[in-house]
């Protein structure tokens, strides 16, 4: 048991070191560096990927509704936090909009999660008893319905219809999103290792057996669905803050597919995998393979194929390779196991740790 306490301690120390490192980076480099874009976007995607992994990877519920809960979170945040004096301008087609107060950002974030969770609860009631492929398509359908409603003219005074929402409070540095995400992911990790987390894994492995062992399927599935959507909502709000403006039309199902692919690449059932894959994904799509989009000359010979869009093609091929050949993803269902490392370091190799 002592290894447990030591590894938790080391984990916290590493986390603190990470924040110190980020702070130093911020001081050292100009704010427009590509690295910061990747870190910000990457960490937000990491939260969303982890939330999706909770549902798909840990509970085995194939849901494609993530974008729907993200957009609810984003809009809830924006609607509640746009400063009152800006509303007339932003809601110009709707007489300033129906919400005439502004909440502090943190409260807005929490509400984003809560409202998303609430809608997830409602959606879960009918949808969670469906078989896996039907569940996928039903959640996809609900996400589209949610998007349609947000863009609906009639709800304009609330959502601004199909127009942008902007000028809500945002963050400038990387410490804010990292802190927010770190807290959320920590909660998810704690959950996974609790008795409820084990029940979710049991449902994933064998529903019938789990039920026979006294685990109520509906309650636990709802729990997973609602919790996952809570964090997806917060992720959506963070994404809104990152982008500076939001529009329902961008939260298409394609976004859910991207998150799903990230989760698969990282390994379904591995939180560290999802985090790593998120940063890899964002780095690839924003940065590394950028050169593939530009025409390149070797002497007088123009390289064929290289032009705008090639980067994404290569990227998609890599994803297909992972899906077909490395099905377990980067981490499979293993985590970056601090406990095992601690054991090695303290020389207690033969001692078994608690399950």
């Amino acid at each position, binding site marked *: 048991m002592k290894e447990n306490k030591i590894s938790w301690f080391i984990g916290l120390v590493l986390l603190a070191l990470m924040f110190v490192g980020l702070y130093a980076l911020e001081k050292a480099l100009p704010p427009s560096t590509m690295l910061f874009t990747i870190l910000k976007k990457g960490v937000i995607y990491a939260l969303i990927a982890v939330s999706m992994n909770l549902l*798909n990877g840990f509970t085995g519920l*194939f849901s494609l509704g993530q974008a729907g809960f993200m957009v609810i979170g984003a809009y809830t945040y924006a609607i509640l936090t746009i400063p009152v004096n800006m509303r007339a301008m932003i809601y110009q087609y709707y007489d300033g909009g129906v919400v005439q107060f502004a909440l502090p950002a943190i409260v807005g974030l929490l509400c984003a999660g809560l409202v998303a969770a609430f809608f997830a609860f409602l959606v879960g009631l*009918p*949808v969670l008893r*469906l*078989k*896996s*492929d*039907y569940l*996928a*398509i*039903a959640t*996809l*359908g*609900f996400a*589209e*319905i949610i998007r*349609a*409603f947000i*863009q*609906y*003219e009639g709800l304009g005074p609330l959502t601004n219809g199909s127009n942008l929402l902007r000028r809500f409070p945002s963050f400038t540095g990387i410490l804010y999103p990292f802190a927010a995400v770190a807290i959320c992911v920590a909660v998810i990790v704690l959950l996974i290792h609790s008795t409820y987390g084990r029940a979710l894994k049991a449902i994933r492995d064998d529903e*019938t057996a789990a039920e026979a062992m006294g685990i109520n399927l509906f309650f636990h599935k709802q729990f997973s669905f609602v919790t996952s959507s809570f964090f997806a909502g917060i992720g959506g709000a963070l994404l809104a803050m990152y982008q500076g403006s939001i529009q329902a039309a961008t939260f298409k*199902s*394609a976004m859910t*597919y*991207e998150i*799903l*692919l990230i989760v*698969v690449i990282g390994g*379904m059932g591995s939180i560290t995998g999802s985090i790593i894959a998120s940063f890899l994904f964002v780095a690839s799509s924003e940065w590394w393979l950028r050169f593939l989009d530009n025409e390149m000359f070797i002497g007088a010979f123009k390289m064929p194929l290289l*032009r*705008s*869009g*090639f980067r*994404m*093609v290569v*990227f*998609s*091929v890599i*994803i*297909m390779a992972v*899906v*077909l050949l490395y*099905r377990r993803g980067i981490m499979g269902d293993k985590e970056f196991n601090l406990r095992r490392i601690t054991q090695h370091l303290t020389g207690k190799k033969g001692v078994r740790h608690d399950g």
Partner: protein
Amino acid sequence: MGWLERFFPYILAGISVGGQYALIAIGYTMVYGILRLINFAHGDIFTVAGFFMVYMNATMPLYLSIPLTIILTVILGFAVERAAYKPLRDAPRMSIMISAIGVSYLLQNLMWYVTGGLAKQYPTIPWISSSVTVWVATTKIVTLVTPVLTILLVVLLQQLINHTKIGMAMRAVSRDFETAKLMGIQINRVISVSFIIGSFLAAVGSLLYFSNYATVTPTVGAMPGLKAFVAAVFGGIGSIPGAMIGAFLIGISENLIKALGYSTFSDAFTFALLIFVLLAKPTGLFGEKTIDKV
């Protein structure tokens, strides 16, 4: 009767687009019936067919570009199955669905790359694209051709399924994959034939669809694809006539909704229908129930 006159053009448009959805929907329902796979990439194959035509027609006469488009689309569908789905046949269901999503992603990115992000104009196929007036509606001939052609193709397909050896093999595989394999049925052939037929119909569907809505972009097939899938579920997954009926229903309903002034909801209606079907009668209109053994 004022309202009939007002709604008639929409109903006509609905029948037309419904037929096009039907041709796509059949591809979904056949593949699902046999592999229990929602082929997320099917909608993109439909879009690629549209692009094939655009590029072929730039360099060839129509009597070449049309058959070539169809052939290339069929080859594409076949290739996708062999490369991305066959290797995962023994993997858990989620893996193959994720592969389908991956293929969809790849196809869309490929299309963006090849077209450079610009929308393309679909070539005008003579006769089909000419205007015609039916009662109070002015529309293109394709609107009238589509339902006829669709029903004809469905009837032909039903004949194939019910009266040929390969059709019987397909029905057997749909009913019980494992047993069919053990009985010596050539699973690979059956699956390939399903994909070939599905892609063929999608190609025909694209010829008709883009003759009506002449702009082709990489994402233009996503919505029709999803709607076609809903049609397949509504009609009873695995049932071809069901998919057709579902598609016509969706096509007509969404246009009626537009007629009533709620165009933002015409897409959402389809999904609401999906949810309703999944909750009320998941096996759809003509689907079959299966019981899981414990």
